[in-house]
């Protein structure tokens, strides 16, 4: 049980950071490539 909890916590933490970083990275790439702000959601 502890093994699964430890793995879930570890992967969730890395996943959250990765999501934030990937959002920033794609926005930066978009701005570099197009010179515009990325499209809004919705």
């Amino acid at each position, binding site marked *: 049980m*502890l*093994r699964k909890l*430890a793995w879930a916590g570890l992967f969730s933490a*890395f*996943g959250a950071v990765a999501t934030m*970083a990937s959002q920033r*990275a794609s926005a930066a790439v*978009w701005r570099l490539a197009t010179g515009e*702000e990325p499209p809004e959601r919705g």
Partner: protein
Amino acid sequence: MSDTVADRLDRLADEAATHGGLGEKAAEPLHEDATFVRTLHPAGPRVAVKPLLPFAAAVGAAFLLQRLRGEDAARGPADRVRAVVARAGEELAERAWTVGRDARAEARKRRAWNALQGATGAVFTLLARRAATGVYEALTGGDPPRRG
């Protein structure tokens, strides 16, 4: 320290087993937990650093890219308000520009943005899994649990 925690878990399991019923059922996972705690690397965070490096580099690069763009350059509250108003103005101008313009081009742009986000997200998710696996292996000396 891990031995102390493991010993406590073992004692707790033994104690629970003596009560029978639910306690007896809880004893086995508690013993498993004690075994798991004993596998944890005593050097802990120090050995976990190495597998973290590629992930940290990617995340750092992403944040640095944004910083270089000057997104977070605003310092005081007044600067932030100016930035928000300026951005709102830009968005309004962009909306005004699209009035009566090609909706297909907008849709294409959105698709390209979605594809870029998907690709970047996939790469970062892979990196996150690899880094988490590396840290887990460094800490425990075993593979992470599989799904199911």
